[in-house]
């Protein structure tokens, strides 16, 4: 059996066991750990020298359409698979023991994970799309059953938004398929990429815009971002970790996989539009983030804001920018997962996430405070964390774009985007101060217990991965660089 297939099947089977009955927590942790180890093993056994897609397995299902259940992974997929398994493991571990309908809760988490892993490991367009959709329903259930606040309204909104985005994307993908010259019709992403490189596949701007906005809605591209902060605020912490940390990366991954090889001209043609929108993400949403009065909403908005950087890497369309974007998927996924895990912990301890009622928490729960500090620094992009490395690459890539001919739009946009770093420092540090320092808020008292061991080790694991790849980005860049090596520096 292909190791990638096991990577998909392990969470699925674990989910089935969880629904069937006994000890869901133990079996989920076991399954998630097995998956994490397997993904590390895959990274280790991937041959960087040869590159390209490895561990390939193909099962033709419907030859007339070229639908085939094909799995395979290159450096980019492997990094995202590692992200998925890491965050899944942390999310399962963070889940509180007393969660109601435990079996179903863990099953939903694992189904999201299986959907994301399946999407990242598929090299067939049909399954690439289908696996992502698979994750939609568990999200709906997780927010609807276990969410907080106006969970029902929010669950509706999120599901409809994402379903709508997915269908726009689907139209784009159908358009892409129809643009393949007759006789070469295929859904194999590898072949599509090669056709794209060879200039044989030119679906045109309409298809590009469908794909861009289809993925864009899933990524929370400004102005289609309003679903995301509410969803993450309402979702239980493990679900928010998985969704913001992993599932949202599907859209960016899709852009890297499809848009970059097939639509290089269209990306340039619509670069200005995208620059405006991504500045909307960085600046407008950034200021909205500053204005938030609750930690969960603030984290939700901050995750939307950071997507702007990823788009900046995309429009740069050179090796630096795209590698930075890919690294950022990994770094941001870990950071936001750690933050949501801690956010859930604060909520369970104090019963509130309003800044006005918090304060001085570090005096009571020092370990929680320390870990939150680390995670906040990672989110700001302090050197030493992988977020820093990725943002630097993106900024360099975007600034280097078209230096000939003086100051141009890319450089103006990059300069403005840099301001986003300041914005994120403002809101993160302010949040940190309001929650952990200063006078004690009404929800804080001496009886509060410090961070639970499960969350503590899960967050330490995520932060350790961030720091390790922050000091040695080469660990991942070795995998990512060859994917975009054909592009100009």
């Amino acid at each position, binding site marked *: 059996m292909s190791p990638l297939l096991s990577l998909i099947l392990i969470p699925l089977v674990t989910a089935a066991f969880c629904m069937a009955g006994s000890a869901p927590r133990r079996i989920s942790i076991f399954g998630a750990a097995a998956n994490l180890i397997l993904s590390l093993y895959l990274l280790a056994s991937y041959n960087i020298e040869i590159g390209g897609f490895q561990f390939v397995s193909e099962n033709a299902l419907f030859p007339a359409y070229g639908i085939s259940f094909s799995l395979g992974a290159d450096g980019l997929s492997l990094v995202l698979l590692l992200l998925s398994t890491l965050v899944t493991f942390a999310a399962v571990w963070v889940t509180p023991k007393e969660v109601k309908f435990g079996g179903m809760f863990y099953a939903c988490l694992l189904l999201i994970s299986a959907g994301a892993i399946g999407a990242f490991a598929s090299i067939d367009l*049909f399954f690439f799309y*289908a696996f992502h959709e698979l994750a939609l329903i568990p999200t*709906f259930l997780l927010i609807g059953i276990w969410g907080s606040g106006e969970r*029902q309204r929010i669950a*509706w909104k999120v599901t*409809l938004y994402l379903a709508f985005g997915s269908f726009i994307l*689907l139209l784009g993908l159908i358009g892409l398929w129809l643009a393949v010259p007759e006789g070469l019709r295929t859904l194999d992403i590898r072949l599509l990429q090669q056709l794209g490189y060879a200039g044989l596949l030119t679906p045109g701007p309409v298809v590009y815009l469908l794909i861009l906005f289809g993925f864009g809605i899933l990524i929370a591209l400004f102005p289609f971002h309003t679903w995301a902060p509410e969803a993450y605020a309402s979702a239980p912490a493990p679900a928010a970790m998985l969704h913001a940390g992993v599932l949202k990366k599907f859209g960016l991954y899709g852009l890297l996989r499809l848009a970059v090889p097939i639509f290089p001209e269209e990306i340039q043609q619509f670069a200005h539009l995208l620059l405006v929108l991504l500045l909307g993400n960085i600046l407008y949403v950034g200021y909205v983030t500053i204005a938030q009065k609750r930690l969960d909403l603030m984290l939700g908005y901050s995750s939307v804001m950071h997507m702007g950087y990823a788009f900046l890497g995309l429009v740069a369309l050179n090796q630096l920018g795209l590698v930075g974007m890919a690294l950022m998927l990994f770094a941001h996924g870990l950071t936001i997962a750690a933050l949501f895990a801690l956010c859930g912990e604060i909520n369970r301890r104090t019963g509130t996430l309003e800044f006005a009622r918090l304060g001085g928490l570090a005096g009571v729960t020092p370990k929680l405070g320390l870990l939150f500090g680390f995670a906040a620094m990672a989110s700001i992009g302090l050197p030493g964390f992988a977020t820093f490395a990725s943002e630097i690459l993106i900024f360099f890539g975007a600034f280097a774009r078209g230096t000939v001919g003086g100051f141009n739009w890319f450089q103006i946009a990059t300069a403005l985007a840099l301001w986003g770093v300041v914005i994120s420092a403002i809101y993160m540090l302010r949040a940190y101060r309001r929650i952990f320092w200063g006078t004690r808020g009404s929800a804080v008292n001496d009886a509060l217990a410090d961070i639970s061991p499960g969350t503590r080790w899960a967050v330490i694991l995520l932060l350790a991965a961030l720091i390790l790849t922050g000091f040695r980005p080469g660990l991942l860049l070795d995998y990512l660089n060859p994917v975009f090596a054909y592009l100009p520096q």
Partner: protein
Amino acid sequence: MNPLYLEVFVIVLGIIMLMAEAFAGPGHKREIGRAGIFGLLAILVATFWINPAALNAAAPYAGFYRADTLAIFLKQFALLSTVIVLVMSLEYAPTVEASMPSERRGAGLGEFYILPVFACAGLMWMASAVDFVMIFVSLELVTISFYILVSYLRRDRGSLEAGTKYLVLGALSTGFLVYGITWIYGVTGQTNLSAIAAALPGLDEAAVPALLFGFGLVLVALGFKVAAAPFQFWVPDVYQGAPTPVTAFLSVASKAAGFIVLLRVVETFVVVPQLQAKIVPLLAVLAGATMIFGNLAAIPQSNLKRLLAYSSIGHAGYLLLGVASIGAPFAGTAILFYLGAYLLMTMLAFLVMTVVAQATGGDDLSDFAGLNQRAPHLAFAMMLAMLALAGLPLTVGFLGKLFIFEAAIEQEHYFLVALGVITVAAGFYYYLKVIRAMYWQQPANPDAPEIPVGGPAKLTIAVLCALIIWLGVYPGPLLALLP
């Protein structure tokens, strides 16, 4: 085996069941239903050994009756849906019994299992009908069986209302059909579809409006049958009032038969490009209106049966989009695949609904509240049916929509495809409403006992669930059945 035998077998089975019913005691009526299931299953198996070449091309019936792969597929379709309807009827028996006078225990229950068998024979003939006369006669056999079935619960006002509405509007649409056929006959001098197709190219220019008028009337009649907007207004009341198995039968088999006839008629007329240019926009308008109406009107519904009625209108819209894309080489297969998918998911939804409604006493969405806690397996099956109807990938419903949209894009119906995408998103809303009721909401009575499910129903639910996922991942077997 000669294909002609299939319908003969079904009719003989029906007559045997009728005779047996006359002698069966009040406690044994259900045996008749079970016998029907086994008999139809046996005939269904037999369809795989059909040899169309055994038909005598020179025989007098050859102009009426064709047994191509399209026809055989629909015969299998009719048989399978009738089998599932009978399974549903077994579950539904207590309601039928309750609607009969208590001093005549078991009266009327036998016929409830027998009438679908005759309707099935009608559907099978319809599948093979290539002559307007044959189409009309077999359509009437189906419709008359349905007149009785819809108003079967004779002490239930809703059922009687539904029966009356269906009778009046069915008669009206029959009138349209016959009138349309006469116009077409008047222009071409033929009732046979292939003879009409042969006569069309040499047609006088002046006769085209008359021909189109006739076609339009036939389209109206078929619009009634398949529940296309603006001829859909009978659907919600009839679907809600009719006994649930009959509703399922109406919404699956009757609709499918309507589409096969529509496909055959449209295929006849589009051979002339000049006519195609007029017919395709007409179909496109119908498709757009049907998609919009069905999906938007389903949103506020609070009764599951009514919701499924509107959703069946919406699905008719997608199927019409396929018919409007008839020029694409793949359109026919896409439509039939969609029909097959529609059978699986709709039947699953109705079957679960029948079982649950027997236990909870109603088919409002509130009767499904908290079903997950009371019967997790039924809730899961219902969720799967809803997700497939909504078109979630890795279920068969997604592939159905994918193929239709692909054919439509190939025919450059961009606007309709965009409309389709919006209505599919609307569909997510109301299908998820059912899931919300089952999974989010608390049951009205938390201590309610487990819901009893009969053996055949349990098996059928499991098979349908498995097929929905299996064919959603691996559509090969279903596609192999299609022409």
